[in-house]
């Protein structure tokens, strides 16, 4: 590795690989600057394999992903080559060909696609690799005799595109996407076009002659074309209406089904009896348009996972110690009393007792707590924590699925698919109302016409039923909500589906998790108490800290800004602290027993994370690490209160922050502390039973139960492609302050839907009037239907975009 050290750089250079600003001393290779050895290594690998096109594809952007300096250990992925693991990971297996599908959250641009599809140039065992960008997936085919699965995973890690490998890859079934909507839509469109052509003679006066001669033939061909639409494309509407009726529940599909059935039967009767024109063109057209609505409704974010459970976070394998021998075992085979070894940045997969080593457990994914928690031998470490520092040995005391945290998923809330039925969508309510009104009018028409003209009576009655199909109504909701979804997406707020937007609009209670949600999970506030430290003393402290890799030391090191002085006799006492001599003064930094004084040990709250400092063998003071509240929190709470929401905060911690939170949230907010994951779930359940519509905002695995229980669970995250527990929406932490605005926007979107409903009613009133008078004909239906459809869709789309524009929610260009 060449490093032409050049110190003549005035401006900060940008890394050739990832585009980040380089530190004071960039690394050089081919006169190109790199910010770290990781990036440099990737470049050299690509250069050696003639793959530098990677850097030229995207103009002006550096495509690389910053490669973490932690090197991939040589045998880290060997467990992937075990037959048992392979059986579950590989999608295809034969002697000369293996196929595997990985998810790669790191891919983000066309350069990534290019490089990942050129994997065969880096490993000649790879036959082909194909990227599915919207889903961030790569499918790799390889020759099992020429390369190994572990080699491919290692290679992907080396070039910065580490795949996610976790327990759910092994235990969960692979989801298959459902393409039946495409087929249904295609079929309906095909039949619609053809029946309309056959119906043309009905539309125009000059068609009379054609009609005379071919009317029957055209009619039967139309039936042949409409049958597949009735039996296949429209099936979903009938099924949904039937489901609803079985539960004594009228939804929007009820009037749709009645209307469709009436359209088809009336047409059938007209054709067979030779009475003349039929409604089959309207029938197929309606189904086609409504399926477009269903198709639009399905727009979601393929690459985001909203249904993750703890398995998506837990590793596939763990190092088990058997008779002093290390053995890689699948996590799902882990049983109590086994001894495991956890290395730096590995995850503790089951509740376990610490046997050896000094543990520093990072629970940021579990609770959002930003400061790692120290543990000593004999203490229980709960599953889900990540070890930071040296490798530790543990004894498992519970099964993976029965651990303190993971048993949350045994709750029945997780057993069933979340349904938004209970919320009762607008459209369903309107649907019930709509069908009763049309039935009443139909009966009224019948009663009016029967004594006068029997033929007319039947015609009016069926016409009213025919017009009962609220096609336009069923379109306004999906078009409005899918547009709202896109607008939210532009603001980095990703909803699982349109129903969630509707739920957000109706919610009256918002429950926040504290740690990691209201506070930053990556930032801490550090405060100092004790004898004042002057700049000189601070620089002494910082000089000693410089040599420690301990997370607290590094946090404090970057907090202090003074100059580093040369020193000597550095030493780190595991689990205690660091010490060193700087300019002849002994500095000790660490736990209270190491650097504090005896009287401090009593009375001090053991829950806060503290670092004690003694200088020259004399106790000086203590640094306290506390969580940092998110910027703009107070403003957000104020806005939510103005919107009349009931607010609550749930915290797993002690109530040390009560006064702070009370100041922000006011006295009417419900603040609860010492809440276990199960308590949080129970609290939401209780609120729901009291008739509230609840939004839960959380971040970690410990909120998963509450997120699932709530009407709309929102999980807040710093990186959208990173891990989030199962939820209904993912909110980028940068957009947290806009949350009140988002709620307001979802409410206004509902108004847009209502507006579109009114427009659609207008058409229905025209249709109904004509129907009651017995003047409703297939031609009028063929004109009214597309006009109403198009105008309602336009109203919805333009309406919701106008609202977004007014509220300044359109994507702002960088």
């Amino acid at each position, binding site marked *: 590795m060449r490093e032409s050290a050049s110190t003549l750089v005035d401006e900060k250079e940008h890394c050739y690989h990832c585009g980040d600003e380089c530190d004071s001393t960039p690394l050089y290779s081919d006169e190109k600057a790199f910010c770290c050895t990781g990036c440099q290594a990737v470049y050299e690998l690509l250069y050696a394999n003639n793959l530098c096109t990677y850097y030229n*594809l995207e103009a002006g952007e550096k495509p690389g992903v910053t490669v973490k300096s932690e090197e991939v250990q040589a045998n880290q992925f060997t467990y992937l080559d075990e037959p048992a693991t392979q059986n579950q990971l590989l999608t295809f297996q034969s002697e000369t060909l293996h196929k595997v599908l990985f998810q790669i959250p790191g891919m983000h641009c066309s350069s990534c696609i290019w490089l990942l599809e050129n994997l065969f140039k880096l490993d000649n065992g790879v036959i082909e690799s*194909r990227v599915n*960008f*919207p889903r961030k997936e790569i499918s790799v085919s390889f020759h099992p005799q020429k390369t190994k699965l572990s080699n491919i995973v290692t290679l992907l890690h080396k070039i910065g595109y580490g795949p996610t490998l976790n327990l759910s890859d092994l235990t969960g079934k692979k989801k298959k996407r459902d*393409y039946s909507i495409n087929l249904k839509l295609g079929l309906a469109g095909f039949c619609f076009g053809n029946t309309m052509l056959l119906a043309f003679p009905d539309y125009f006066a000059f068609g009379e002659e054609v009609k005379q*001669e071919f009317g029957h*033939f055209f009619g039967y061909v139309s039936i042949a074309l409409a049958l597949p639409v009735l039996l296949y494309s429209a099936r979903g509407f009938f099924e949904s209406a039937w489901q609803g009726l079985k539960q004594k529940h009228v939804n929007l599909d009820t009037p749709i089904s009645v209307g469709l059935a009436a359209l088809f039967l009336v047409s059938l009767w007209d054709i067979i009896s030779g009475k003349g024109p039929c409604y089959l063109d309207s029938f197929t057209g309606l189904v086609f348009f409504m399926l477009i609505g269903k198709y639009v409704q399905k727009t979601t974010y393929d690459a985001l996972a909203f249904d993750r459970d703890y398995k998506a976070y837990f590793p596939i394998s763990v190092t088990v110690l058997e008779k002093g021998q290390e053995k890689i075992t699948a996590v799902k085979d882990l049983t109590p009393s086994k001894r495991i070894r956890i290395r730096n940045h590995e995850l503790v997969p089951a509740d376990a007792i610490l046997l050896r080593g000094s543990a520093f457990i990072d629970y940021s994914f579990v609770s959002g707590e930003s400061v790692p928690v120290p543990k000593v031998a004999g203490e229980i470490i709960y599953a889900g924590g990540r070890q930071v520092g040296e490798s530790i040995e543990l004894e498992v005391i519970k099964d993976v699925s029965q651990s303190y945290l993971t048993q949350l998923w045994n709750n029945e809330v997780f057993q069933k698919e979340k349904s938004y039925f209970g919320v009762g969508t607008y459209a369903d309510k309107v649907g019930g109302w709509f069908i009763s009104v049309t039935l009443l009018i139909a009966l009224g028409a019948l009663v009016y016409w029967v004594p006068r003209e029997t033929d007319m009576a039947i015609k009016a009655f069926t016409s009213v039923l025919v017009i009962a199909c609220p096609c336009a109504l069923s379109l306004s909701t999906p078009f409005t909500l899918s547009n709202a979804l896109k607008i939210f997406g532009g603001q980095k707020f990703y909803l699982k589906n349109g129903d969630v937007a509707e739920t957000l609009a109706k919610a009256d209670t918002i429950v926040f998790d504290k740690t990691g949600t209201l506070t930053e999970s990556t930032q801490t506030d550090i405060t100092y108490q004790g004898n004042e430290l002057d700049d000189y003393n601070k620089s002494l402290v910082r000089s000693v800290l410089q040599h420690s890799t301990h997370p607290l030391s590094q946090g404090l090191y970057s907090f202090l800004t003074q100059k580093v002085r040369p020193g000597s006799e550095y030493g780190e006492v595991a689990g205690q602290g660091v010490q060193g001599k700087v300019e002849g003064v002994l500095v000790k930094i660490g736990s209270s027993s190491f650097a504090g004084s005896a009287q401090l040990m009593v009375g001090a709250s053991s829950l806060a994370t503290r670092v004690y400092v003694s200088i020259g063998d004399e106790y000086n003071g203590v640094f306290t690490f506390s969580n940092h509240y998110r910027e703009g929190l107070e403003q957000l709470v104020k806005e939510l209160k103005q919107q009349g929401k009931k607010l609550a905060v749930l915290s797993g911690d002690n109530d040390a922050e009560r006064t702070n939170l009370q100041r922000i949230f006011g006295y009417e907010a419900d603040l609860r502390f010492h809440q276990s994951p199960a308590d949080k779930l129970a609290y939401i359940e209780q609120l729901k039973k009291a008739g509230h519509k609840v939004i839960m905002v959380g971040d970690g695995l410990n909120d998963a139960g509450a997120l699932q229980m709530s009407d709309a669970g929102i999980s807040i995250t710093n990186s959208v492609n990173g891990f989030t527990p199962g939820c209904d929406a993912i909110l980028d932490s940068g957009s947290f302050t806009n949350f009140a605005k988002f709620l307001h926007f979802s409410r206004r979107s509902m108004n847009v839907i209502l507006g579109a409903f009114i427009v659609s009613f207008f058409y229905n009133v025209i249709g109904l009037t004509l129907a009651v008078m017995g003047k409703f004909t297939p031609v009028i239906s063929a004109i009214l239907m597309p006009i109403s459809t198009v105008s309602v869709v336009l109203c919805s789309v333009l309406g919701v975009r106008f609202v977004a524009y007014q509220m300044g929610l359109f994507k702002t260009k960088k």
Partner: protein
Amino acid sequence: MTIIYMLIGISLTVAVLFLTSFIWAVKSGQYEDDYTPSVRMLFDEEPTGAGNKKSGKGEA
């Protein structure tokens, strides 16, 4: 005018052929990913040292 029967027969046959190819396209997974192919087709084929892809440094 009987020619209309034949014409409609022919037109429907052609249309059904298109419908079948659409169904085939959906079933064969062509609707799985509607973004990546649009990028992929812009990549240039590059001359590779055929046979020995790992043969050290190429020309820049």
